[in-house]
């Protein structure tokens, strides 16, 4: 079992690095303290317990991770805009004409979790995502064009317009669905992992869920069962400190969610979820653990959502808190600065990349707009196999 290396003060908002079994606390200034080489990022030096093997990530992969983070940010921002625009119109009219745009649960601010985690997966690995799932889908390789068309309810959508924001499927890239029921995806992930085990493949299933979902009974049942049956599943808890308006402090009793792993005798870890490399490192370890048939594990990523729970709802959180998370702990500039500092990327390349991701999102919008509405006479299709 892995040692616990990085933790937060219980439920505190401020990052600190606590060594297990030791009284000394080191405030961790950020993730960029590693002695990484130009081509290869060594995050091993950040912690000293059982993490001595440096983790190497290809330069191109690092750049690709940044691109995906930027894409998610741009996609989410656009999706919120489209919602707002749409709902400025008369709602009854929208309903009567079938042109309503769904509420979206933006994952802005949480990009490091989606990208850090999915970057640890192979194309034939699987993910099960949540209501706040656009980032996961993009990070696993889903097509933004099809995703945007889905939000618009078009036939060209990733679920042919039948699913919407919370029900995106693309088995081709291993996306076996986001889910509108909090805690509803956890048992499904068991099954996907079970199928891999049953067939003797080395595929791994990664299951995203939130701090809210960690309070549902399915969390407990799923971790227990996965542990008993050594299922190749990685549970990634995106603890963004809130479930709609309830804080994790008011809904999660005891120490960290990641600590709950010990109740099932499986490895658990708590990482800075706004540090894409920290997430990546922890999840990569968990994925190889699963791939080597050692069973499930639980990674809690401490992060924060930037916007209201979903479009259409107010956000009444503390301005200081908002400032801290959006200005001081934004995962994107942190990673950009790191890559710049390591001369893995240049300012010019960065500007170029931003332009490209924005263009890609605009293309996605154009694709969605150009896509046809579903044919009403096909409404009963896809009910039965």
């Amino acid at each position, binding site marked *: 079992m892995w040692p616990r290396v990085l933790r937060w003060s219980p439920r505190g908002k401020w990052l600190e690095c606590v060594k297990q079994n030791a009284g000394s606390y080191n405030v961790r200034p950020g993730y960029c303290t590693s002695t990484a080489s130009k081509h290869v990022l060594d995050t091993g030096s950040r912690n000293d317990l059982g993490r001595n093997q440096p983790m190497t990530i290809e330069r191109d992969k690092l750049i690709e991770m940044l691109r995906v983070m930027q894409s998610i940010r741009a996609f989410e921002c656009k999706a919120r805009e489209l919602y707002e625009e749409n709902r400025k119109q008369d709602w009854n009219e*929208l*309903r*009567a*004409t*079938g*042109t*309503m*745009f*769904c*509420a979206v649960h933006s994952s802005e601010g949480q990009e490091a979790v989606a990208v850090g985690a999915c970057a640890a997966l192979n194309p034939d690995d699987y993910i099960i995502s949540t209501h706040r799932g656009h980032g996961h889908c993009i990070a696993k390789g889903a097509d933004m064009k099809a995703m945007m068309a*889905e939000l618009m*309810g*078009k036939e060209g*959508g990733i*679920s042919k*317009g*039948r*699913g*919407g*924001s*919370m*029900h995106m499927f693309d088995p081709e890239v291993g996306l076996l669905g986001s*889910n*509108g*029921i*909090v*805690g*509803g995806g956890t048992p499904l992930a068991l099954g996907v992992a079970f199928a891999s085990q049953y067939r003797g493949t080395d595929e791994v299933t990664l299951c995203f869920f939130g701090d*809210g*979902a960690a*309070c*549902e*009974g*399915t969390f407990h049942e799923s971790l227990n069962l996965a542990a008993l049956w050594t299922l190749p599943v990685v549970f990634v808890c995106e603890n963004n400190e809130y*479930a*709609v*308006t*309830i804080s994790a402090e*008011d*809904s*999660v009793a005891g120490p960290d969610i990641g600590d709950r792993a010990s109740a099932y005798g499986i490895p658990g870890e708590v990482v800075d979820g706004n540090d894409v490399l920290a997430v990546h490192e922890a999840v990569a370890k968990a994925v190889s653990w699963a791939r080597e048939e050692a069973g499930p594990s639980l990674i809690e990523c401490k992060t924060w959502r930037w916007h209201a729970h979903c479009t259409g*709802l*107010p956000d*009444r959180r503390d301005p200081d808190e908002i400032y801290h998370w959006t200005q001081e702990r934004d995962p994107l500039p942190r990673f950009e600065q790191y890559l710049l500092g390591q001369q893995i990327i240049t300012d010019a390349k960065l500007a170029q990349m931003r332009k490209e991701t924005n263009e890609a999102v605009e293309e996605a919008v154009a694709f969605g707009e150009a896509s046809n*509405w*579903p044919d*009403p006479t*096909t*409404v*009963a299709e896809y*009910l039965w196999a």
Partner: protein
Amino acid sequence: MREITFVKAMNEAMVEEMERDETVFQIGEDIARMGGISGATKGLIARFGEKRVRQAPLSEAAFVGLAVGAAMAGLRPVVEVMYVDFVTVCMDQIVNQAAKLRYMSGGQVKVPLVIRTQGGGCNAEAAQHSQSLEAWFTHVPGLKVVMPATCADVKGLLKSAIRDDNPVIFIEHKLLYPTTGEIPEGEYTIPLGQGEVKRTGEDITLVATSLMVHRTLVAAETLADEISVEVIDPHTLVPLDMDCIKASVQKTGRLLVVQEACTRSGFGSEIVRRIAEEAFDDLCAAPRVLGAANLPKPYSGKLEIETIPWEADIVEAIRNMVA
């Protein structure tokens, strides 16, 4: 008469009942500062404090069960389950516990409990947030089931539900919350089990609850010059005011139940059965249910609007039946 929103009417009902009886408390997700997903519990936390407005973690089985236990122990919980779709994670506490405890105990305990939840579609929320599951609850002896349609009704019915000594499933329609309507001044309640003739007519009886009451009334008005339509809102499915429905069908000879729930095995089928059994000889045409397509709700609005009865569908159905 004052004009207020549906959600405000609910809020008034809850404030009044909480003032009246300090054993009444609220429990559910996001019911404190946000006032619940609909805003129905807005201000309750400020007025009654954290003791009586309990914002719960995402643990529907635990907090619904907590409410059932608290009811058994003498309190009067009002629970909010955010969407009716989520009863699927706490069905045991509703069906095997709340509904049965009194009977199984030989009458030694009672469970005065209201579970408020929202149903219905056409809000672009797709298959897992758009269901109409009232029929399930009506099939479970021991539960009362209320589906209010208007601002005046929701206030009076919610107050009765809170005062009732039995578990009551109170299903609000998500599209009704912002609607406005007139509401009587002062204190009033509407008894559970008493239906209302929302419009009198001679040619056909329409039975509808919740959002569909409004659609049937529009349809009736559309046809006013042609066909005389009676519209009945039973308010509650359990207990059901069969006298009211039967009297109407005996007059009109025709029954059309309009529901947003999937047609198959919806509560409309139950009403048709009751009328077929109890007023067969009064029927001069086949009774009918106009309900939703037997499909999960598709997300795309262009598809979703195909699945739910609209005013025009009701008009057409009436015409077909009376022709």
